[in-house]
Each structure stands twice: as C-alpha cells, then as structure tokens.
C-alpha cells in the first residue's frame, strides 16, 4: 500500500537524498515508535530501538528490493532493533522512570497528499471496525496489550485469567484481524502454493 509520494521519497533516499529520507522518518516515526514501545519494556529502549530501526533503514535502503512493502520491511527492522536493544539491555530501571518525564511533543508528519492520508485513515478504520467485530474476549486482551501496553501477567491479573488463556486470546484476536488486513491489502502472505505444502520449520 504505497502511495506515489512515498515511492518518490524512497527512490530518492535510495540514491542518498537525506531530505527525502527525513520525510520517510517523519512519516513513519510514530508507528515505528508505537511498535518498539510495545515490544520493548521501557521508553528508553523503545526510543533507542526506533532510532536504530531508521538508521538500519538508511543503511539498508540501497539494498531494499521492494519484494516486501516498505512498511513491512521497516517494521521488521524495528522488531530486529528491539531484539538487539533487549539483548544489550543492562539499563537500570531508574533510567526508564526518568524518561517518562520527557516532554513529548507531536511532530508533524511528512506531508502526504489528502488521498494518501485518506488511505492510511482507511486502514486504521478497518482495524477499528475489525476490533469492534471481534468477540469481546479477544478485543479486550488486544486493547490491553496494544493500547495500554500491559504485559501478559498484568492482563492475566486484570481479567482474572490464566496466562495460557491470555496468550491464546491474543493469538486468535490477531488472526482475526489479519483477515481485515487481507481485505485492505496489507496481508503479507507467502506464496500459497509453496508455503501451505511446505513443512516449514521442524
């Protein structure tokens, strides 16, 4: 789901245009940060991972072949960065609580055309509709996880469930929402003929 303007920025950034890359950063920074903050356990790690994700994107852009969508590629870099940061993590808890006091100001997005803003809003709307259509049990855990960033243990406490139930509801909720993504063109399915027959990993 790549709009024209984004494609132009990507092409320019691939040849070394830093201004174009900055537009991409502004375009994706909140989503990438949302991603890393929900995968890392504290804001300091999340920010570091988000920065690393964009650095990796800058370095890897010349090699980006477009066989996955740009956002998919960027989100993978973000999750890789989270793993890296978590592996290096020795930071004291005190550091995290200090970060919470940082003044947080919303930065302007890279400017998109009205059409493309509408596209993004449409996907968001799809997800919202999908959430509304989920069985309440699944919706509840996903909202606690994604919106309120609760850990599995916390969710289990809040809802008086055991851990296994929390995990399976999250899993099923995500699978249901994947169908929403399929309809809006964001589903990343490997070639069906190959993968459904393949043994996959052992």
């Amino acid at each position, binding site marked *: 789901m790549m709009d024209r303007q984004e494609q132009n920025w990507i092409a320019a950034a691939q040849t070394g245009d830093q201004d174009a890359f900055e537009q991409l950063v502004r375009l994706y920074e909140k989503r990438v940060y949302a991603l890393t903050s929900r995968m890392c356990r504290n804001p300091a790690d999340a920010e570091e991972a988000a920065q690393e994700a964009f650095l990796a994107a800058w370095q890897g852009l010349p090699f980006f072949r477009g066989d*996955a969508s740009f956002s998919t590629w960027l989100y993978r870099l973000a999750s890789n960065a989270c793993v890296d940061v978590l592996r290096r993590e020795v930071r004291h808890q005190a550091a995290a609580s200090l970060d919470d006091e940082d003044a947080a100001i919303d930065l302007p997005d890279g400017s998109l055309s009205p059409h493309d803003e509408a596209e993004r809003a449409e996907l968001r709307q799809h*997800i919202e509709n999908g959430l509304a259509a989920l069985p309440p049990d699944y919706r509840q855990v996903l909202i606690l996880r994604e919106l309120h960033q609760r850990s599995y243990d916390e969710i289990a406490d809040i809802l008086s469930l055991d851990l296994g139930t929390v995990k399976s509801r999250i899993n099923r909720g995500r699978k249901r929402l994947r169908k929403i993504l399929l309809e809006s063109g964001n589903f990343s399915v490997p070639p069906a003929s190959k993968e459904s027959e393949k043994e996959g990993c052992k």
Partner: protein
Amino acid sequence: MKYCENFAALLDPFVDGELSPGEMARVQAHLDECPACRAYVDDALAIRAAFPDAEDTELPDGFAESVMARIQAEAVPRAEAASQTEAVPRAETAHKKKPSRPWLKALASLAACCAIVLLVGPLFSGGAKTEAPAAAADTAASTERAMVSSEEAAEEAAPAEAPAAETYYTAGTAEAEPQAPAAAAAGPEEDQASFKANSPDVQMQAADGGSISTLTLPPEAASLLADFAPVEETDTEARYELTRQDCDVLTESLTQADIAFTLDDADSDTVLVILEK
C-alpha cells in the same frame, strides 16, 4: 495458513516482548528461515502500527532531528558505503588500528554508544550511579556527542578489562549491528562470521566475565558435533566452543532429531557445549 509447531506459540510473546533476550534472538533467527512465521509476525506488527491511537504515540521531542543528526554524523560517505560490503566498519576508518578490535566496529553502531556511555559513566567516574539515568534522559539530545566520547571511552576501556567486561562484550556482539532484513544482501551474515573469527579479545572477556551460555548434550548427540573439534576432552565429557550461529543450527538439528538438551542461555556470543559420554 500453516504454522510451525515449534515456534507458533512463541510468535505472540516475541511480538509482545515477553521472551528473554536469548529466546527473542532464537525466534528472530527462525523468522529469517520460515516464511509462514515471518508472515504472522509481519501482520502482527502491521496491526500494531495501524492500531487506533498508534498515530497518537507521544514521541520524544526532536526524534526525527536526532535520527538525521546520527545519519549525517556517519563518517563514510553514502557512495563509498554502498560500494563496500553492507556493514561498513566505520570504527576502522576512524581508528587506524589492527583489526583485532572488531568490537569497536560494533561500537560505531551509534545505539551501542549510548549503552556504553551509560556503562562507562559509573565505571569511570567513581561509581556515580546517578549519572547513568541522567545520560539516559539525555539520549535523544546528545547521541552525537555520545558517539564521539564513547568511542574514546571505549578506547580506554579496551585494555582495562573491567569487571563489567561482559557488558562491553555484549554491546559489541555481532547482533549489535543494525540487522538488515532477510530481503537484503547476505552482507550481515558474512560480516558476523568475520567478526566472530576476529574476536579473541571478546571471547576472553566473556570467559572472564563468567557468564557464558552452556549447552549440555547427551551422548547420542555426538554425531551432530562431528564437524567440530573439542577444546577439552575427558572420560566423561567433551567440551566444545561454538559460535552463537553454530549453536543455533545445532539446537535446530537436535530438535529435529528429537534429542533432548539443556541450554543455559546467558546471551554470550560463544556457547560452551558439553557433550556427555
């Protein structure tokens, strides 16, 4: 959509940061090889990015500016970088030293510098622990300064063999390099291999640091270790030292062959493998 049984249960905890760092890395390595699991994780991330209110995430002030500042601070021009292998050893251009300091190369990865600043702070300023949190709070604003000062600090730290050697070590692991995705060139893997081959200092520090991952195997696993030479052998056991990469491959084979094993994972880059006889 068919999911692998071994990893299916780990994918959600992976996405949700609920696994140990070692497990995270294992899943991440698996994603590089398994399109089905990769697709699930990609979609979970896409859901997250499109979730209501993801756009309202409060970013630290000046995030985009600090990203661009780090990019502009790169010593190697883009054109030069593109013509070399992917992970350009930036530290080696700045320090004309022997290649026996590969962990400095990883330190040039700017995020690693932030970690080093935090670690070095208490160590070199007489245990003033309050400086570490302060440094963390300033991360966004001072990454550029941090890069320069931490490279200097790392130079000092190298001969020091401080008790925190293991943390320097983990900061300097191959994984600290920003990982390009599977779709990109094979550069990162080659780079990791050469990095590991050249890192005797790092391994020694890990051993001295005390926290090395240990994999214990029953006798029937012997054939899987046929490619490796033990570093030590007694009547009751044989000991091997494997790279993290080799160990991951080995544990996969063990699982495939249905051989039980115990992995005590301390996230070290080298794994001590004990084969019982």
